[in-house]
């Protein structure tokens, strides 16, 4: 089953075809069904009516035909010739016998008339029967065959039966058909009483065949190609066809149906005195519409029937025509649907193709649909959108280039600044060295020549020198951190921290700091020397500030947590803590929160730490409250994305060649190192 969801996902062409077919075929199918059904009904009714008419008409014809024959015979029986013939033939028959001159002379007198009558009225035979039932004359049989007639009479022949009935009723009687297999002819007898005055002296009987009846039945006027009339008679337990049928010329007296059997119900009904109308299956296995009648005068059943196929032929033709129309229409509809769907989907497909091309980066692609309809509009706005995209992309490229330019500039400036800081601090060392040495000589060698006031000034100079010396050292470290890139290696952090602790063991012991280092720190891919600086500065700070909180025993902790993508290290102290408002500032260069006298140090430590962490693409932050200690956290990603150096970017951009870069760097390094 096609669900709605599936339908929605079909291609436009298929959707159109399905919709078009639905719209075109549903009303057409309904119309076809209704017209077929109604025409069928009308046809059935019409044909039934006409069959009834035919049946009535045929019944009438048969009756008129036989009545006429009956009338003829009755009239013949009243003629004086016949009365006299019976009287004379009976006399001769009984008194002289058949083969006597008396009989022959009588026969000679009457035979021409009788033969003429028989011939002109087309009978098969004419009998004169005596009162006692002997056939005294027949046209075809010699009168000496008297014994044969006797036998015939007493063998319950139709002639005998009809004679007996005539004798009883004193009226003209018609027998049933009798069939002679040897002659293959049917015989029916009409017998009329012959009176002399008021006395019955015998009967005249005429034998006729079913020829004329057959002609009557064979008239198929109004019965189309398959219609026919069947006349049957009941003989004992069987219904016997007494006329041939349209599709079986030998049916008469051959085709028989047992009463109460399944076949020919309509004929069975007819011979049993019923009339009616219905649809059945006939002897050929065809569906037929039948009308049946009972002809009481002859105790016959008559059926007029016609094949339903023929009856409904026009309805079928109509139905077939409509089916052909539907089929043709379907094809036309499918073709139309495809054409219309194409007209809708091909521009969409083109748009899709163009947008795909654009998506792959070819911004010169444009939709070439110039229709004025909605799709044309879509294409135009799509093109406009692409234009804007091109413009926007150009803008972005420009901005990107500008940014890149600025970034390069900034990096160059940064580098220059670093190198300036390095050179400057370097250059500062030389004079400071002299100042330190000479002020020292003054203090030592000229102690007796300088008064106390002078010595006080000298000592101020000395402490200024040592502070400046530390500042310069820190500046150098800071610039070295930025300048020098050591190769990354796998560093066991426990080992690294242990080596740092060794370096500051003296301070730790002096301040009686309780140090707790986690034992399970990981191996991290990093710059060993710089990472050492990080721990050195952080642990140094922690030792320094925890020992200043005089109320408690100083404690410092170092540890690490696995954060999935990165490791998070911490250095924790229970020292004086840092106010929240300084949490960001402390990582700035030479940021001091305390007076020189309170804590030694230049304030460069944390900015060195931050630079190193930045270099490792990590993050650093502090959690602290005044009086409650501080915890410095920093992260190191497990996967280091190697940052490109400026030089590599310049080379990639094609700004300079590798040789030029190396030359420039060498030159710069030389300049830096002049001191």
């Amino acid at each position, binding site marked *: 089953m096609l669900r709605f969801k599936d339908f929605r996902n079909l291609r436009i062409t298929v959707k159109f075809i399905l919709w078009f077919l639905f719209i075109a075929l549903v009303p057409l199918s309904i119309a076809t069904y209704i017209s077929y059904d109604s025409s069928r009904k009308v046809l059935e009714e019409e044909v039934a009516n006409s069959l009834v008419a035919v049946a009535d008409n045929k019944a009438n014809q048969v009756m008129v035909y036989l009545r006429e024959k009956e009338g003829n015979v009755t009239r013949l029986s009243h003629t004086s010739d016949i009365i006299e013939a019976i009287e004379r033939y009976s006399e001769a028959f009984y008194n002289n016998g058949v083969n006597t001159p008396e009989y022959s002379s009588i026969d000679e007198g009457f035979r021409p008339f009788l033969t003429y009558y028989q011939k002109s009225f087309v009978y098969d035979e004419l009998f004169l029967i005596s009162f006692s039932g002997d056939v005294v004359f027949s046209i075809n049989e010699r009168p000496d065959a008297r014994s044969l007639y006797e036998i015939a009479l007493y063998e319950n022949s139709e002639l005998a039966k009809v004679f007996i009935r005539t004798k009883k009723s004193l009226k003209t009687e018609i027998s049933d058909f009798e069939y002679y297999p040897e002659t293959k002819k049917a015989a029916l007898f009409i017998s009329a009483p012959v009176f002399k005055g008021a006395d019955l002296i015998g009967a005249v009987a005429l034998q006729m065949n079913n020829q004329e009846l057959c002609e009557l039945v064979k008239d198929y006027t109004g019965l189309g190609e398959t219609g026919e009339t069947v006349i049957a008679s009941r003989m004992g337990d069987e219904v016997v066809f007494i006329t041939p049928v349209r599709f079986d010329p030998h049916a008469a007296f051959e085709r028989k149906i047992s009463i109460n059997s399944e076949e020919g119900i309509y004929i069975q009904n007819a011979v049993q005195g019923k009339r009616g109308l219905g649809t059945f299956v006939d002897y050929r296995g065809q569906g037929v519409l039948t009308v049946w009648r009972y002809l009481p005068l002859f105790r016959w059943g008559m059926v007029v029937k016609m094949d339903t196929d023929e009856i409904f032929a026009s309805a079928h033709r109509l139905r077939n025509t409509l089916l052909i129309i539907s089929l043709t229409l379907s094809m036309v509809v499918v073709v139309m649907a495809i054409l219309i769907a194409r007209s809708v989907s091909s521009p969409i497909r083109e748009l899709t193709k163009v947008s795909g091309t654009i998506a792959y980066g070819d911004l010169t692609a444009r939709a070439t649909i110039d229709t004025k309809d909605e799709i044309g509009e879509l294409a135009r706005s799509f093109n406009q959108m692409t234009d804007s995209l091109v413009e926007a992309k150009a803008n972005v490229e420009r901005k990107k280039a500008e940014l890149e330019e600025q970034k390069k500039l900034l990096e160059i400036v940064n580098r220059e600044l670093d190198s300036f800081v390095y050179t400057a601090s370097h250059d500062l*060392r*030389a004079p400071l060295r002299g100042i330190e040495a000479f002020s020292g000589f003054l203090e030592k060698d000229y102690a007796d020549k300088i008064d106390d006031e002078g010595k006080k000034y000298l000592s101020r100079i000395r402490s200024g020198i040592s502070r400046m010396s530390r500042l310069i050292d820190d500046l150098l470290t800071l610039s070295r951190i930025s300048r020098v890139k050591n190769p990354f290696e796998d560093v066991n952090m426990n080992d690294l921290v242990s080596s740092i602790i060794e370096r500051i063991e003296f301070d730790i012991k002096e301040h009686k700091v309780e140090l707790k280092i986690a034992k399970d720190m990981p191996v991290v891919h990093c710059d060993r020397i710089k990472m050492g600086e990080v721990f050195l500065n952080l642990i140094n700070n922690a030792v320094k500030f925890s020992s200043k909180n005089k109320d408690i025993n100083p404690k410092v902790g170092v540890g690490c947590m696995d954060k999935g993508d990165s490791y998070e290290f911490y250095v924790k102290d229970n020292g004086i803590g840092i106010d929240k408002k300084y949490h960001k500032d402390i990582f700035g260069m030479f940021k001091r929160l305390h007076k020189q006298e309170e804590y030694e140090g230049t304030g460069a430590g944390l900015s060195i730490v931050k630079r190193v962490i930045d270099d490792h693409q990590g993050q650093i932050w502090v959690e602290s409250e005044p009086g409650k200690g501080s915890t410095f956290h920093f992260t190191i990603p497990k996967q280091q994305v190697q940052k490109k150096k400026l030089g590599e970017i310049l080379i990639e951009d094609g700004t300079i060649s590798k040789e030029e870069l190396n030359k420039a760097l060498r030159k710069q390094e030389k300049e830096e190192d002049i*001191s």
Partner: protein
Amino acid sequence: MNAKDKNKATKGVPLQILLVEDNEDDILIAKKAFKEIKLKNNLYIVRDGQEALDFIYHKGEYADKQKYPRPDLILLDINMPKVDGFQVLEQLKQDLEYMMIPVIMLTSSNNEADIARSYKAHAASYIQKPIGYEKFIKLITIFTNYWSAVNSPPQDNSQ
């Protein structure tokens, strides 16, 4: 010959030291420092690399071999006008006659490239001039003792 050398310090023979330095402050400090250390020494001072080479090769005003003897130890500043410290070092180390004289590079820079270049050119040691006279005294005491007493410089063939 070895015995004679070994006894140089103990016998009271002063260690001949050549200081190549252009900074007057550093010269003054060095003079005072070499005066103060216990080891007997004669400190000769030249102001640049060219002068240093002249001194060693007894050229020009340094022709007098008695007045300007062959140094036992050279303290060589790197950054100098005209001929710099590296050039002097490389020149000496190419010369079979003078290649055995220990040269200590003396500089305010702790540039790794300089350190590497110095050792590559067979400098005996490398000292970054510290801020702090006391540290300097310590350093030169260690070095001069080392080079004179503990590990006497091998005697040159010509002597």
